[in-house]
Structure formats: C-alpha cells, structure tokens
C-alpha cells in the first residue's frame, strides 16, 4: 500500500475516523495499530520482525542509558545499541549475500511474500541510533511508554522513507495527540495532493527519458547525456520531495508536524548550503552523529582533521544508500567538493575581493548555477547502473556523435532519439506542462499564503490541482526512487 495507491487514499481517512472516535489517551494505540497494519500489508514479514527488534533494543537500551549513572556502563549501552542497529540493518540489507555464503545454491519459495525487501529499515535504524545518542548526551529524555516509543519509530507516514525524526521533535507531539482540526486536515490534504502531483505527474514523466539514456549511455550523444542528467536531477527532486510532502501532509492531518526535508535545494549557493536544503533530516543526522564527533576528535589536526571527517561522513552517506561503487563515487565526490571548499576558502575570498566582485549581486546567481552543476554532475554516479557507465557518461558529456555508426544508433543518438525511445512527442509535451505546473506551484507556495485568500480563490487552486493530477498523471507501479535505500 504505497502512498500513491488507491488503498492508501482509503486507509488514511479510516485511520483518521478511528483516531477521532477514540478518547485522547488511546489515540497513540490507533496510530500504532495503523502503522503496524500498514507495514504488515506490504507482505514483507522479515521487515516487521526487524522493526520489532529495533524497537525492543532501542527502547530497553534507552532506559538503561538513562538510569545508569556509571559513565563507562552508559557508553557500553550506547555502543551496544548502535551495534544492534547496525547488525539488524546489515542482516536485512545483505540477507541474500549472507544466505548465499551459507547455502551456495540458495533459492527460497516466496509464497507471495517478499523476503528480501529493505523498505524503511535504513531510516528507522538511523532514527533509533539518533535516539540513543540523544539520550546519552542528555539532549532527550528517554521515552518510558513502550507504545508511544514504538509509534515514534513506526509512525506510518514516515515509516518507509523518513524523515528521520529527532526524539526532541516527535516524542512531545505524541504525548499530546489532539483532536480533529479542520485547518490541519485541509492543509494536510492539500500538501498530500501536491506531493502526489510531483510524484505521478512530474517524476514519473521524467523517468522514461532518463531511463532510456541511462540504460545504455554508450548509444547516446553528449547532448543527450547532459539532457538526461538534468532531467534526472529534476526527477529525483520531484520524486523524493513529492514523497516527503505526502508524508508531511498525512502527518499534519493528525496534527503532527514532521521535519521539512527539502528547502529549494537547487537554489543553494554552495555544496554546504545544498546539504542544508537536501534530504535535511538525513544530512542533519550525518552532521550530528558522524561529522561532528569525528571533527571534534580530530580537531588537533586542524584543516586536515576537518577534511578527514568530511570524507568519512560522505563515504558513509554514499554507502548508506547502497554498498556499490557508484554510490561510493557519489559520496566521495561530495566529500571532495566540501573538502575543497574548506581548503580553498581563504583563496576564494581573496580572489573575489581582488576582482572587485565580492559584493556583486550576480555573485549569488553565479554560485547557484555552479553549485547546481556540481550536484548534477555527482548525480550521474548516483543514477548510473555501474561505475563503468557512470565514468563513461561523465567523460562523454561534451562528445558529440554516438560511437557506433549505424542507422539505428544515429536515430537513437540525439536528443530526439532520447525522446523517441523514452516516449512520444506528446509525452514530451505533457512533461512540459507538468514541469510548468510544478514551477508555478512551487513559486506560488513560497509567495502566497493560501489559507488567507478568499474562498473562491482557494477553491480555484484546489480544483486546478485536482485537474492537474487527473490530466497530467502518469501513474505506474514502480515505487519511489528512495525506496531502494
């Protein structure tokens, strides 16, 4: 029952009704049951087991860390908790690999269930680690109510792809679950529909063009590689921010505020700025729990220490997505970007001052364009099917013709070829329309406070969104990009 399915759209109001009918002290139970049912409905039994283990270990160790006064024992509990999450995460993620090591010619009867899915696990294990670390540092109080704690880790809107919530942000909200609030339900539904639009109309329409080229980059000209890369940059943003809006929208219907995950990331003026705007809950996690401790540990090494901490952090980021050379390359690229920025900062400032453009209004626009291109370039490796393909794409962006000469490839080689392979000219036009709506809608959201507008205006906007959803959607059963992590 993924977010863009009919089942989900029926599931949520049912939960909302049950939630409202319950007395407020049992509302957590409604949400928790709904969340467990949601996870179980995916028919991925090992995930439910893994989630339960994550909840049990982190609940128990959180209390131990807090109740214990001996510093060494507290640290031991913390590291035991971290180790437990790593083991659970690794077991699920590498289950096939592990089983093949034990039983070489391993095949399993599926019985209609998916035994190897990893949906959600990478997110709530990180959240559990964050909880344990915050309890250890005293930043958060441990949650003693088991049901509420389980809900904190399993709340269905954020279960599959985050945001990764901090104890200090989510737990207090779960302690006071308020009644049906019309304003929140209304804005929650709107936010959900907007996210749905981004996913089914924008991301799903960009996907075929990107897939056509990235499936076999050798058959495409440099211009097509560039076009497909730009399109992927937009696809992944629409997909993931669309999911996030759907998650936040549904949570809002229950008066719960989840963290913002995206803040116009492609308007960033530096890579450091980009990471304050992209997948914010994740980048804050790696900042607080990997970068900061390492940076402080290595502070005597000054800039070298900072660079080291950055490289480890972004290598982790790449590997968290998947243990593959492509993601490692992507992570390391961002590490290098940030390390260069740290090392070159004094020179960069001096250069800008020397050429007199330090305070030029165009500077920010220039930095924005450069940053976007650095990010887009790194996305090549994120999307590439193999490191060889990624390297090929990256090194052939400005190489004109296709390498193989034949009628078939000469048609495929150009941007027109990419269009014809990915879809028809009509598809391309629909995509254009969806992109226009996305752009207008995003600008609109930032500049107009819809709730304050007169009723006819608000309802025109609602209808416009519904129409856009109905006419521009390209629904498929493929799932979200970030599901695979």
């Amino acid at each position, binding site marked *: 029952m993924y977010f863009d399915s009919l089942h989900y759209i029926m599931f949520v109001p049912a939960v909302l009704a049950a939630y409202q009918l319950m007395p407020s002290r049992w509302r957590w139970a409604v949400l928790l049951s709904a969340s467990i049912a949601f996870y179980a409905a995916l028919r991925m039994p090992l995930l439910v087991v893994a989630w339960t283990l994550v909840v049990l270990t982190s609940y128990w160790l959180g209390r131990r860390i807090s109740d214990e006064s001996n510093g060494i024992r507290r640290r031991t509990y913390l590291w035991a908790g971290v180790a437990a999450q790593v083991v659970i995460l690794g077991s699920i993620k590498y289950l096939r690999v592990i089983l093949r090591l034990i039983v070489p010619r391993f095949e399993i009867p599926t019985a209609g269930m998916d035994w190897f899915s990893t949906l959600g696990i990478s997110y709530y294990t990180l959240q559990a680690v964050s909880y344990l670390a915050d309890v250890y*540092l005293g930043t958060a109080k441990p949650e003693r109510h088991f049901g509420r704690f389980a809900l904190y880790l399993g709340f269905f809107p954020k279960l599959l792809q985050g945001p990764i919530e901090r104890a200090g942000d989510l737990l207090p909200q779960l302690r006071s679950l308020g009644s049906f609030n019309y304003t929140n339900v209304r804005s929650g539904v709107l936010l959900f529909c907007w996210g749905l639009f981004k996913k089914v109309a924008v991301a799903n329409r960009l996907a075929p063009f990107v897939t056509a080229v990235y499936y076999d980059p050798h058959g495409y000209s440099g211009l097509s590689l560039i076009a497909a890369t730009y399109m992927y940059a937009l696809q992944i943003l629409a997909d993931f921010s669309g999911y996030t809006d759907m998650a936040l929208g549904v949570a809002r219907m229950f008066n719960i505020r989840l963290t913002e995950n995206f803040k116009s990331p492609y308007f960033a003026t530096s890579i450091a700025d980009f990471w304050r705007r992209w997948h914010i809950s994740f980048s804050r996690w790696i*900042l607080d729990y990997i970068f*900061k401790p390492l*940076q*402080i540990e290595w502070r*005597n090494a000054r800039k070298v*220490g900072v660079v080291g901490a950055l490289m480890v952090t972004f290598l982790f980021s790449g590997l968290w997505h998947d243990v593959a050379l492509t993601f490692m390359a992507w992570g390391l690229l961002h590490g290098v970007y940030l390390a260069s920025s740290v090392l070159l900062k004094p020179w960069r400032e001096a250069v800008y001052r020397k050429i007199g453009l330090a305070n030029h209004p165009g500077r920010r626009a220039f930095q924005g364009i450069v940053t976007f291109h650095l990010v887009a370039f790194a996305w090549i490796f994120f999307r590439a099917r193999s490191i060889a393909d990624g390297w090929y794409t990256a090194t052939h962006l400005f190489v004109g013709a296709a390498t193989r000469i034949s009628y078939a490839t000469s048609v495929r080689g150009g941007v027109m070829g990419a269009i014809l392979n990915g879809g028809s000219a009509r598809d391309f036009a629909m995509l254009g329309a969806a992109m226009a709506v996305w752009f207008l809608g995003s600008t609109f959201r930032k500049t107009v406070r819809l709730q304050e507008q007169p009723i006819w205006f608000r309802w025109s906007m609602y209808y416009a969104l519904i129409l856009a959803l109905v006419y521009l959607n390209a629904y498929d059963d493929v799932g979200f990009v970030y599901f695979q992590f």
Partner: protein
Amino acid sequence: MIKPDLKRVILQELKLDDWQMEAETLAAEIPGWDSLSHASIILAVEKAFGVRFSNVEVLKLNNLGDLQRLLDSKLQ
C-alpha cells in the same frame, strides 16, 4: 556573562571586529561560525586558556553560556 577574554578569542578566530555575545547566543548567530569552523574555534579556546575539553563535553554545548561554564569549570 560571557567574559571579555573568551569573547576576544572567538572574535580573533572568526576575524570579526565585534559581535554581541550573550549566554543564550547560539553559534549559528555568529558570522563564520558554522559546522566547518566549529572545531577550530573550540581548539582556539583550548589553546588560549591551556585547557582540554572532552569530546562529549564539546558535543553537549548548546550555546555560548554552556561554553563559558565549561571553560570556567576547567580553569578552577
């Protein structure tokens, strides 16, 4: 609450002429103090006063007041 000698070390490290610093001031409010420069500021404070903070102590700092209190506790 923030003593002049601590303030001077921070201003010097961030190459600022002056900045308002109270106990509740957050690092993010001071220009140039971000996650990338954080460790170097801590190091500068340690070197200026001849103290050493533990990693956990540094991670627990929330605002300048915490830093001042931590520093004072090491100097006693």
